[in-house]
């Protein structure tokens, strides 16, 4: 009888160890993949890396238990449940970061358009005297080049390449401001030449 009880106890001991947390593992993986699909690699690369590292640590914990006589997957389960929750919580923050990047790109695009329009308007007012004709023509070509750049910014925004779009837009703004300065100087030159003739 004693041996029978002992045998039952041993059976219960091994039966009570539980099975590997396959469900929790799949759920955590799916959540991380979901975060990656939502753009984590672009907008939250460090968070994504940490999630993947934690997944690896959970796998190590499972492996460690598998090699033991007395297995317990409680810790691994706990790790995976928390991992899934954190991966799920990351998704809305990625959406917010993406929206912020979009707003930044759009703001930069508008600023660039404004700067190019300013240069264009100044050029339209610039007197095309003999003294300035070559310069004015050249600056009109500059504006044309900048307008082509603006079209490229539009394409980048449409393709959701927000950071390159913002960088290009800032560069266009800087160049357009330089053209506006040149136009003003050319106008001053013409005015000075007119004054000298009088």
């Amino acid at each position, binding site marked *: 009888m004693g041996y029978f009880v002992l045998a039952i106890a041993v059976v219960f001991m091994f039966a009570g160890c539980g099975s590997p947390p396959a469900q929790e593992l799949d759920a955590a993986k799916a959540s991380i993949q979901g975060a990656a699909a939502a753009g984590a690699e672009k907008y939250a690369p*460090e968070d994504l*890396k*940490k999630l993947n*590292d934690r997944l690896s640590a959970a796998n*190590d914990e499972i*492996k*460690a238990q*598998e*090699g*033991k*006589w007395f297995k317990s997957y409680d810790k691994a389960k706990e790790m995976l449940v928390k991992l899934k929750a954190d991966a799920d919580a990351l998704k809305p923050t990625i959406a917010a970061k993406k929206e912020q990047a979009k707003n930044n790109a759009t703001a930069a695009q508008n600023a660039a358009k404004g700067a190019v329009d300013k240069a264009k308007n100044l050029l339209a007012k610039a007197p095309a*005297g*003999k*003294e*300035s*004709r*070559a310069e004015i*023509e*050249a600056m009109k*070509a*500059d504006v*044309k*080049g*900048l307008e*082509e*750049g603006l079209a490229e910014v539009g394409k980048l925004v449409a393709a959701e390449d927000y950071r*390159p779009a913002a*960088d*290009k837009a*800032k*560069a*266009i703004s*800087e*160049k357009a401001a330089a053209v506006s300065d040149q136009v003003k100087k050319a106008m001053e030159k013409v005015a000075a*030449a007119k004054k000298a003739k009088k």
Partner: protein
Amino acid sequence: MFFRCTGPPIPREVKQAEILEHDLWGTGGPQYAPQEYQSYKFALRKAKDDLIRESSKFFLFRDYGYVQAELRALLKEGERLRIAIQNRKDSRASGVERQIAAAQARIEKLGRLASTVNEGYLARRTLTKAGVALIEADLLHKKGEFDSAQERFNRLNGYLGDAQETLAPIFTRYTDQTQIAKWRRWVEETVSESRNRGSVAIVVSKIDRRLILYQTGSLFKSYPIAIGRNGSSSKLHAGDRATPEGKYWIVRKLSMSKYYKALLINYPNEDDKDMFVSAKKRGKIPRSVGIGGRVEIHGGGKDGMTYGCIALDNDHMDEIFAMVDVGTNVTIVGSTDDDNDISSALEGL
């Protein structure tokens, strides 16, 4: 039987090695030392697997000694890798800075070249796009995004290549030894004739923007001028805004014209007519376009551009007008100097 058994502690080096792996990733391991970074990760994985294997043994038989030694060696290697990554980043940063400086210089050179030949459209537009790409590359360089900066340089070099291609038909003539020798010969013949006849002659150098007055074969005076909108090219047809090249003479003196005083020359001469006919046959000139004419040396000011004529300040025009006659030779050349502004500007491009 069910008392709690503990074995030797897990080596703390495993956590340190994990933190170091994360640091190496964060500082650019995958970009700047991909193979070494992967080797580190592989070695860390192996050390962890060895740790798991050892952990699964009965506590009395566990020995983390060799795992600890593995991890310590890995940490040393990781620190070396950290330094190597930083060195490579610094090297990339320097490389990008050099590229920025070189690209800036090239843009400026081509810009000056475009101005010299009055190319204020296609090349200029392309150079502006190159300028935008350069600013982008600089922004990315400051953020440490060197791969993206390099992509912008590749684009920028494409634009500069396009600009050079646009300018090439105009400026290659000014580096062509045969062409320059021909121009030089025209000038020598003109000056020689001025000497032999004891007469006045005009020589115009387009690249220098100068009109030189010779008297009895000696340089009398040199005047600054303006030429055509596309003056660096040789005039081929009406409306091309180029200033012709060749040996001409004054056919008429106009004391009153649209641009103060004017000296009408005999463009087109026989060479001009031959070139026009040849270009028409090759389809280089639209059918409805004529050869043009009414090319003058006139006043009205040297600043700006003309439609192909040669313009001077009025007071200079007065001087020249007084000295020349109908029949005075007028020789117009691109340049007589091998080392002219265009050939110099082309150096290093």
